[in-house]
């Protein structure tokens, strides 16, 4: 029902984009390289901080238009981790609702 695949592996973010949000310049991942594949993100869902003990982890929920990706940026180790991919292509879509892109 919820096509989520847990990955939990370090990935490379090779391109970023910047946006002025609430009077602060903020940085978001744009392109990710994972297992030899390149994923271009088209939209940022939600960015929120979370704590792992005293470590600050920034969670980025991103989409490339076909699947949702959860990325975590460890502000101490400066590393990116791909937590899961939720591929909704095969998930059911209600008849009277707009289909996914």
């Amino acid at each position, binding site marked *: 029902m919820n096509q989520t695949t847990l990955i939990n592996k370090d990935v490379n973010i090779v391109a970023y984009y910047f946006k002025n949000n609430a009077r602060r310049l903020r940085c978001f991942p744009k392109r990710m390289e994972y297992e030899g594949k390149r994923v271009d993100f088209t939209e940022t869902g939600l960015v*929120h901080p979370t704590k*792992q*003990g005293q470590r600050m982890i920034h969670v980025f929920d991103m989409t490339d238009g076909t699947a949702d990706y959860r990325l975590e940026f460890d502000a101490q180790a400066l590393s990116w981790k791909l937590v899961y991919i939720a591929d909704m292509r095969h998930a*059911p879509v*209600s008849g009277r609702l707009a289909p996914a892109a």
Partner: protein
Amino acid sequence: MPRYQADLHLPLNDEAPQILHIDLNSCFATVEQQARPMLRGRPLGVTNRLTKNACVVAASYEAKAEGVKVGMTFSEAKLLCPDLIMIETDPPKYHHVYKELTKIMRSYSPNIVMKSIDEGIIDVYGTRESVNQRPLAVIGHEIKQRLREQVGCWMKCNIGIAPNRFLAKTAASLHKPDGLDIITHKNLRSTLANMELTDLTGIAERNQARLNAAGIYTPLQFLDAPAQVLSRRVFKSVCGDDWYRRLRGWEVDDAEFSTKTIGRQFVMDDYNASEEKVRNRLAHLCESTGLKLRYKGFCARGISVYILYKTGDAWHSRKAFKSSFYTTPEILRRALLLFNQHPRLGNVVMLSVSCYLLEPSTANQMSILEEVNKERLLTEAMDELNERYGNYTVIFAGSLGADKQIKQKIPFGTTRYFELLCNRA
């Protein structure tokens, strides 16, 4: 003289509205749809645990359109809406949205009250001359815009504006989703004329039956009922007087309540769990209760344990002690004293531990007993480690493994432990 006699002919409050009630629509589901764009436009349910007996804690508007309601079990919801997508709650996301909403609200008035994780009140009384000179409806639309900019484009909220909190909440529920309504003394009667008694917050089946017994069948009749009838015949308490004032736009809901109990409950992950497993879950609940108790700077003198059996029977026991306690081993020892007395009426399906008779913490007070000091130092050391590396990094052996089953969830009602609960390991 009783209060209701003084208010026999209280008029409608004709002051300009000063209260804004902000309510996020289907909060958890909307935040999930904001975070995962591929879920937008799909029927979505959010649950605390992905099992068929777990209930829907939030449903998206698409799911609600198919008949899914909050409180249904997953299997019931799936029958109504076979395409329903269920996902587990993710507290840090809601915590972030809550913080952003609070930040926005606080920029309009220092007097804000968060009623729960998804709704809050801005009282602009006293700020109209300086910061909030614009009409409140304009400010309301600005709040909606800022929420979309600061959290995300999918976020929607209802805003109600009225002279008191009750009418502001009523106004916020008139046009879901994304509504903005104002109730004043001028449109109060016309607004209530289009509502049912159970549409009013605080009036469910029982109160409706009480009102019906006194010949009150509509909100307008409720509004027109004399204070004496409400106090003496309907509610038979001061509640009737409160309702009389509340419906007329006078403030009665601004009372603040102190923390009376701190505890935790858990619906068993295994309905056929052995006694050993139940004790393991109990130990974890005690650990969690101790964490909350110390976080709030309290110690307790009383403890209660509640058990619900598979047969439908329930058992409850409570005990007050002369000495206060706050360390996990102390809580567990006292909880076990009660737990050991429980009648074996079948398998346990729900377990709850709570501490009461709360007092300011005595953690700084050295004891003359060496054993007590050792326990205090051990607790302090464990708390420090757990704060640095995340909750439940170091735990007592009795609760080993339970933290994997008892996941920390944010309840709808309280926002008191957000920072504590979001510190994952």
